[in-house]
């Protein structure tokens, strides 16, 4: 485990009692920096959001925008030269950043599960699926006879629509979609409150993708967990999530419900993302986003998006970093076009 990210456990903050209105996941001011040979790269900058149980949030952004770093930081799996600099991650009434290594190990999978990108390649090829599932149970102090543990695994396999026979199989005997569902089954074994899925279907074809997403949807209902779906496919987001967070150069630039995002995107980057989507009406129209994602080592001054922004060729966009503002209805946007009262400027 990575002890660099561990701060001393603080019993007072770690055990704050939950109130009824407390969301199941609260991320406050999360910051991650990678100390590379070329300088410091701030991969995650003051990321805050909340999520209620049963809610699904999508996180979209280009490669290198910090989506996966956010997931890893929440799991406390950032490896050196990366470092969690600041921030708190509350799951229910437990604060993850201040947990000690052993408690954090238990919290992973127990409270917060992570289904990594290309999860199908994360299964051990020489151990049966069942043994890997039982291993996950045992390492989280689940007591019981081997028959009881096995039944629990069968139940998890059943809830992802897999035959109990998979328990005795090896990873190579399964198709990509089945392996992905095995990973989901392992993820829900301990009924975590939060499930983070990092591009769970990017390597799968559309039919299998739909099957996997429907599976996630159903098991989420069963255990009433909060789900974070990381990806760059806005189409998938439209079909699956309740709210969307758009990430750009390590910051959340807009957080809104899926309906608000698709009918009335506020941030120019969100607008460009949505305009670049293909649909049945605009055949043959290709509208990419001009320019390239900035290097985290040399972020542009002011708003990091300003070199690519249609409104970016002026001040304060070029010189001042925008702050997050809350608009009517609780949606959040980080852009100079909107002022502190959430009124559109200009």
């Amino acid at each position: 485990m990575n002890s660099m990210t561990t701060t001393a456990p603080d019993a007072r903050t770690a055990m704050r009692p939950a109130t009824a209105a407390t969301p199941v996941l609260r991320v406050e001011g999360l910051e991650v920096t990678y100390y590379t040979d070329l300088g410091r790269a701030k991969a995650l900058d003051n990321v805050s959001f909340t999520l209620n149980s049963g809610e699904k949030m999508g996180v979209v952004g280009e490669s290198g925008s910090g989506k996966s770093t956010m997931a890893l930081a929440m799991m406390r799996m950032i490896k050196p030269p990366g470092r969690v600099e600041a921030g708190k991650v509350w799951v229910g009434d437990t604060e993850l950043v201040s947990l000690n290594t052993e408690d954090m190990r238990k919290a992973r999978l127990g409270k917060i599960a992570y289904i990594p990108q290309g999860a199908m390649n994360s299964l051990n090829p020489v151990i049966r699926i069942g043994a890997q599932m039982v291993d996950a149970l045992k390492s989280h102090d689940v007591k019981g006879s081997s028959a009881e543990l096995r039944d629990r695994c069968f139940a998890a396999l059943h809830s992802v629509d897999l035959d109990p026979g998979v328990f005795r199989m090896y990873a190579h005997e399964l198709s990509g979609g089945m392996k992905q569902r095995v990973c989901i089954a392992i993820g829900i074994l301990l009924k975590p409150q939060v499930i983070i899925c990092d591009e769970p279907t990017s390597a799968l074809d559309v039919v299998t993708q739909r099957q996997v997403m429907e599976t996630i949807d159903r098991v989420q209902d069963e255990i009433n967990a909060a789900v974070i779906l990381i990806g760059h496919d806005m189409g998938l987001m439209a079909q699956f999530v309740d709210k969307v967070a758009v990430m750009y150069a390590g910051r959340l630039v807009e957080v809104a419900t899926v309906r608000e995002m698709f009918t009335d995107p506020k941030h120019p980057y969100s607008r460009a993302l949505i305009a670049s989507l293909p649909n049945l009406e605009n055949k043959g129209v290709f509208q990419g986003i001009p320019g390239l994602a900035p290097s985290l080592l040399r972020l542009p001054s002011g708003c990091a998006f300003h070199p690519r922004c249609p409104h970016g060729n002026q001040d304060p966009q070029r010189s001042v970093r925008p702050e997050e503002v809350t608009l009517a209805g609780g949606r959040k946007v980080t852009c100079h076009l909107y002022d502190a009262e959430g009124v559109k400027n200009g």
Partner: protein
Amino acid sequence: MANLLELRNVSKVYQRGLISSHATVALRDFSLTLNEEEPTILTVAGESGSGKTTLAMLLLGFITPTVGEIVYRGKNISGLTGRDRMAYRREVQAVFQDPFAVFNPFYTVDHLLSVPIRRFKLASSRSEARSKMEESLSAVGLRPEDVLGRFPHQLSGGQRQRINVARALLLKPRLLIADEPVSMVDASLRATILETLRNLQRDYGVSIIYITHDLTTAYHISKSIVVLYRGGVMEAGDVDKVIKNPQHPYTQLLVDSIPWPNLEQRWGQQPIQARSGQAIGEGCPFLPRCPHAMDICKTRPPLFQIEPKHAAACFLYDKQPQIAAEKLSEQLPA
């Protein structure tokens, strides 16, 4: 009209096992003709295991067909020698799926682009080679000064994929085989790469075979589409007709599962039947998952004409005129 490329009843069977031999039909009785005069973009769509990559490998001559022949400019590609073989190698180019894996990390972009120039003796001097490189990079929307002299790790996925296209373009190909060229790049960069491909077809007269599982991009870039499932053609025709009005139950399932970025258009109206590993034998490959399965489906359905430039291999349409497998290309608009 001269034919650039012809596939005549091509099948590819993979044999496995010495004692109990087990055969997988990766591509079955596939015929296709590409015309020399009318460059087109043809999509070959299908899920993993549908035989689409086998088709790409056959076209590139990496594997030989078990049955049938592939004819390039009137000559079977397995028997090409000397000058003909060089011409084929130069004129049929490929862009592969993973822009991160195809580059040698020790070589700069210049090296990557100058090897084909030397190999095919495209330039007589160093400055001519340089200007050819710059020309092809500009054609794919890259600034030569941004990428020349750089190493692959200094470039983004989208830039690398466009360098692949530029490398192919350098050789003035007649046919480009693009195997999932955008599935590994960001959604925001996909548009740029697809536009590059379309401009290649329009401005340089390159025919493109676009192999993908993504019907949304297929719809936007191509004129015609062939939908494969477990090695067989399920549906083929004009891309507008096939995607807006799919007739084969498999294509209907595919189109129904596209996550359109549209809140009003929900996916998943049609339940998915589990895919079974059972051998399909001589029947319709989609039979085990088909909601309309009938007794007759245990024999292999031929293609039936649904409407002009639209055909489906399904007995639901057996009142329609039947089309021979060799005539598939007549269903594809140029």
